[in-house]
């Protein structure tokens, strides 16, 4: 009985992370699109290198974005980037939650498996070209 309840907790936690992450990111992206139109008068997509999401690595990009947003004067591109960042962090948080869950329930096999997934994802988000 105790095991069933624990599995249910993991399922609920993952489910809430997914729903919350997707809803927030889509709402922020919609706001960003509206803001882009109101400030530029058009919705043209510019494929210039300066409009690409790029940083030393993903985490430093997120940190830089947080710093810029905390100063205020949000630009629509920053809001759009914020939506994409929340979206990309959603599955990452899902894996972090699973690592914690398997650690707390002392399941070494799945703790290792989820840690491997988390490690590979973290390395891939840390790489830069």
């Amino acid at each position: 009985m105790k095991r069933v309840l624990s599995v249910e907790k993991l399922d609920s936690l993952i489910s809430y992370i997914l729903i919350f992450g997707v809803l927030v990111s889509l709402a922020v992206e919609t706001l960003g699109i509206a803001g882009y139109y109101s400030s530029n008068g058009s919705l043209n997509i510019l494929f210039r290198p300066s409009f690409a999401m790029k940083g030393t690595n993903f985490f430093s990009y997120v940190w830089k974005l947080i710093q810029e947003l905390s100063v205020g004067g949000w630009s629509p591109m920053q809001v759009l980037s914020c939506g994409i960042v929340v979206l990309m962090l959603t599955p990452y948080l899902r894996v972090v939650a699973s690592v914690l869950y398997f650690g707390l329930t002392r399941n070494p096999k799945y703790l290792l498996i989820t840690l491997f997934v988390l490690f590979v994802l973290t390395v891939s988000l840390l790489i830069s070209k």
Partner: protein
Amino acid sequence: MIDMLSVLIISVFAGFLGSLTGLGGGSIMIPVLVAFGVPVKYAIAASMVTIIATSSGSAASYVKERITNVKAAFYLEMFTIVGAIIGATITSFIAPRFLYFFFAGFLLTSFLGLSGHMRREFPKRVRQDRFSKWLELDGSYYDEAAKKTISYKIKNAQIGGPCMLIAGLAAGMLGIGAGAFKVSIHELILKMPSKVSTTTSNFIIGITALAGASVYFASGLLFVGLAAPMAVGTTVGALVGGKILNRLPNRLIRYLFLVIVVALIAQMLYEGITLP
């Protein structure tokens, strides 16, 4: 060049049709964006991010209903994320012409989804091997249609895992979910029940897409102006498609699927051949 509003509107239709046919919004959006002059690598990178939204949205309810096998998903995820990173890295360096042909070729695997009815919905008498048993790959869920609790065991984890590397490679390389390919591995090799197979595939797709998207981010191929309206539109379209799917006759869905797949293959082959 296409603007955000056009991307948003087209994405709603792509998400809707992708949900009805099982192709996924990305498989439809990439050829359409290419037809509008968007470079194929930018379209693939944006699609990879879009997939995170659509798969996470639909995976949420299935996880809560406990149909998804989270343990199987994480075991298979070890292979798909490595494949996705390799695939996305290949795309960052490869000549676009090859991508058109690979895309057209991989669309053919979506026909695997059509043969779904030939497989058993609930595989019977599955003798679990030692490795799959060690991985605790079993489970149960309440099936609303059958009105009973289905208990199942998964087998052949040692073969299914490496096969998922190929699924991840294709997903990362082409910016698609490769759902039909994954579901076929789940059902034909791992002997998962149909509903567990599709929902577990949905769960895997989101994390795999993040692995691929991370490479595109590092390569500077990810444009927010393209990815954001695509994510919003495709997710809305997929939600609407999911709601009306059960009301449409199967025959209509199959014709729709055939017409769309043939058109997408033709478009990608045309782009590949006519590329200067």
